[in-house]
């Protein structure tokens, strides 16, 4: 533990570059956010618009799934390659999701009457 941090001063160019990079990234996040808002609107809209439930249900579930993936990979940085141990984390999250999904599916299908 401990002595793994030493102070390292960036060059001006590097510093400027990093700031720009961060800003670009932030703009991307805003776009992601816009997409999420849009999806939410669409989800509410199709329900209000009263389409056939056979269409609406899978459709809004799909929208929800996409939103969640966006959250996970954009806001929560699951896609960032250099974050520490991110591969392992990805594995854990998806295994968790599969288990959650199995429980869900079973409750909705074979084990319920």
């Amino acid at each position, binding site marked *: *533990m*401990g002595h*793994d*941090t030493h*102070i*390292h*001063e*960036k060059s*001006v160019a590097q*510093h400027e570059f*990093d*700031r720009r990079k*961060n800003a670009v*990234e*932030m703009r991307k*996040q*805003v776009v992601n*956010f816009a997409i*999420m*808002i849009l999806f*939410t609107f669409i*989800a*509410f809209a199709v*329900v*209000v618009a009263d389409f056939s*439930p056979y269409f*609406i*249900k899978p459709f*809004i*579930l799909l*929208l*929800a799934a996409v*939103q*969640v993936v966006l*959250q*996970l990979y954009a*806001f*929560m*940085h699951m896609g960032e390659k*250099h*974050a*520490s*141990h991110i591969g*392992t*984390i990805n594995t*854990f*999250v998806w*295994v*968790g*999701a599969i*288990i*959650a*999904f199995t*429980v*869900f599916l079973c*409750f*909705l299908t074979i084990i*319920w009457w």
Partner: protein
Amino acid sequence: MDINTKYTPKTWPDHAEQVTLEGKNKFVGIWIFICSDIVLFASVFATYLALKDSGPSGMDITAKELFGLELAFVMTMLLLTSSLTSVYAMYHMKNFNSKGVLIWMGITVLLGLGFLGLEIYEFYEYTVHEGFGFTHSAFSSAFYLLVGTHGLHVIIGLIWITGLIIRNAKRGLNLYNAPKFFAASIYWHFIDVVWVFIFTVVYLMGVLG
């Protein structure tokens, strides 16, 4: 790691939240915790779906009649926006702008409070005006427990973030508190993820019947 090391924007490392071992541990730790929370919510969700609309014989309140969309929509917007504001906070953390972190985290808290307020209002309406209390039926128990568990997560998140803001208001960013902010923001996003499912499955699909 020395908490007293003063950083400048130029010496502030990339991924400051993950350069120390403690930071890495926090980062991995909050994720593993979220994994376990995923299964927790899955269990509550599955129960809700199994018990939806079921109550004592002759129960007259169903999801279709009970839920409205206006409130849910506003709540969704508040929570989604708070997700974005906490991303802003993390953006400022990258640039070593501790003021920015505090302000945006503060906005996040305000939005979260707004969400919570609406949720409490909603529960109050259902309980008092609709006669749909916690003990009314299996459906009501499942509903309040599902949405309430999410609400509890919101409360914990708010306390956590508020604590971080108060605690670090004066001392600026360092390698000791950066991971804490980061973990709190990831947790906050997760709350949003759960809400996406709640508004879809409980409210939207509830209104469909």
